[in-house]
């Protein structure tokens, strides 16, 4: 279960935010109404972008893999990469790029070490399918799946500071940061800065 509320709690009211892979802009709309932010989006899917623009949102049809370098440094208060980093061609490059765009970034992702996934592979011997990862292996846009531990290793290596973190799993319930989050959380949320 993904909970936007966790991210909303981190975001200051009135901030200028870039949403990566904003889709039809529902996420921007939601933050606009809850946090009164100034929201901008980028998405590659033209039909979703039409919908977002038709709804009066500032969205650019573009490729996150190549277009992020166009923005000036520190041009946003936050960049939010919600459930999108695992889709990137080079997630490390994207993360480094968004760290340039704002002081604080938020990355949320499905944790591939979640116990249901582990057990799925163990008992079925097949690529796991869950509500959050529903795709057949040959259709999945999630080309770079990773775990919470992987991500923390990456942050350490890249000298990225974890300001706050939160986890959800087992239908909505928060998972304690202390009680094996890498095993029991389905989705992870990180507030980061360089």
């Amino acid at each position: 279960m993904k909970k936007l509320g966790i991210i909303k709690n981190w975001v200051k009211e009135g901030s200028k935010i870039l949403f990566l892979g904003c889709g039809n802009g529902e996420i921007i709309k939601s933050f606009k109404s809850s946090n009164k932010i100034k929201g901008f989006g980028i998405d590659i899917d033209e039909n979703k972008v039409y919908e977002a623009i038709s709804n009066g949102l500032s969205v650019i049809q573009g490729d996150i893999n190549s277009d992020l370098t166009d923005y000036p440094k520190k041009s946003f208060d936050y960049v939010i990469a919600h459930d999108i980093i695992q889709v990137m061609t080079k997630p490390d490059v994207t993360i480094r790029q968004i760290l340039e765009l704002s002081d604080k970034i938020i990355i949320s992702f499905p944790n591939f070490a979640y116990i249901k996934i582990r057990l799925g592979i163990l008992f079925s011997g097949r690529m796991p399918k869950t509500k959050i990862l529903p795709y057949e292996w040959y259709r999945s846009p999630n080309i770079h799946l990773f775990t919470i531990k992987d991500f923390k290793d990456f942050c350490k290596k890249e000298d990225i500071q974890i300001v706050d973190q939160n986890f959800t799993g087992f239908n909505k319930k928060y998972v304690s940061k202390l009680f094996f989050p890498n095993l029991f959380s389905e989705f992870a949320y990180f507030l980061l800065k360089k």
Partner: protein
Amino acid sequence: MEETIPKKLNDEGSAGIVETLYFTFAEPPEELVLSNGSKLGPVTIAYETYGALNHDKSNAILVFHALSGDAHAAGYNSPEDKKPGWWDIMIGPGKPFDTDKYFVICSNIIGGCKGSTGPSSINPATGKPYGLSFPIISIKDMIIPQKKLLDYLGIKTLFCITGGSVGGMLVLQWLVSYPDLSEGAMIIATSPNHTAQAIAFNSVGRYAIIKDPNWNNGDYYEGEKPDKGLSIARMIGHITYLSEESMRRKFGRKVIDGKLSLTDIADFTKEFEVENYLQYQGESFIKRFDANSYLYITKAIDDFDITEGFENLCDALKEIKAKCFVMSFTSDWLYPKEQSMKIVKALKINGIETTYTNFESPYGHDAFLIDDARLKRLFAGFLKSIKERI
């Protein structure tokens, strides 16, 4: 009387009967000084308005037309008109440029032949049409009379400016010349400057005109007109406004009357339906357009370069205060998406609020003139976002 009124006029979405108005300024000795230093005056521009200006004059939208367009953007000039204005799909009550909410203005560019001062206008100094004595004008020059018109109408800032193709160049030029005079801007199917390919097509068109014996160095207003040259120019231009796909869908290899003319008399011009269509386009164009205007305007387009006088595109666009909506069309090969993306990139680098889409359409460069519900929703959505921003 009822039956002579075009059906569409009775539609709720029509701007109704509109009158073309005229505004004259730059009376000598206070002529308009053009970018090449030459003077032009008096200058008249033809314009139309739709909807009503609100009390604080904050709801005006300025529409720029494309190469062969005119001030008549919406509604009908008379009940006998068969067709409405050129952007009637977008302008009218309940349409994206909703005339119940906005005051929409469209004026004919100078150099044109639809009521604004151009080469076919009478030169007051000689009492004869200007012809080639009309000064060379630029895209930059074309927006000055439009600004004067706004001053005359008492409008200080615009809610939005919009235009496709050359109209898009005029939008870009407006943003550079008057960066803080519009809340929003729609930059549609255009380019920061012409590619060699686009110049080449225009050049062949101009060549067709000046090689027409009737052209007579632009002095043809009292005799036969260079109709052949102008119609060929239009035929070439028209090909560039369509896409391979739209031509394939519309004509394919269909032949006129369904059979190839395998007679002993060769017909090199009328065999395929696409030939027929282009000739029709050429022939109808000569009835409504002046060959010299075609030369002057295409020249202005080819000479246009928004980066002129600046270090680069980013530098040129840096002062813009408007929220921008850049739009290209997937099948537009005259102004391909890369050119719009250059504009988007420069706007982003400057931190200007920007929206962009490469709209999926088979209709080529002219796609912005095609009635498409998705396109209308995008336009309406963008206008809504400007409102939220103010």
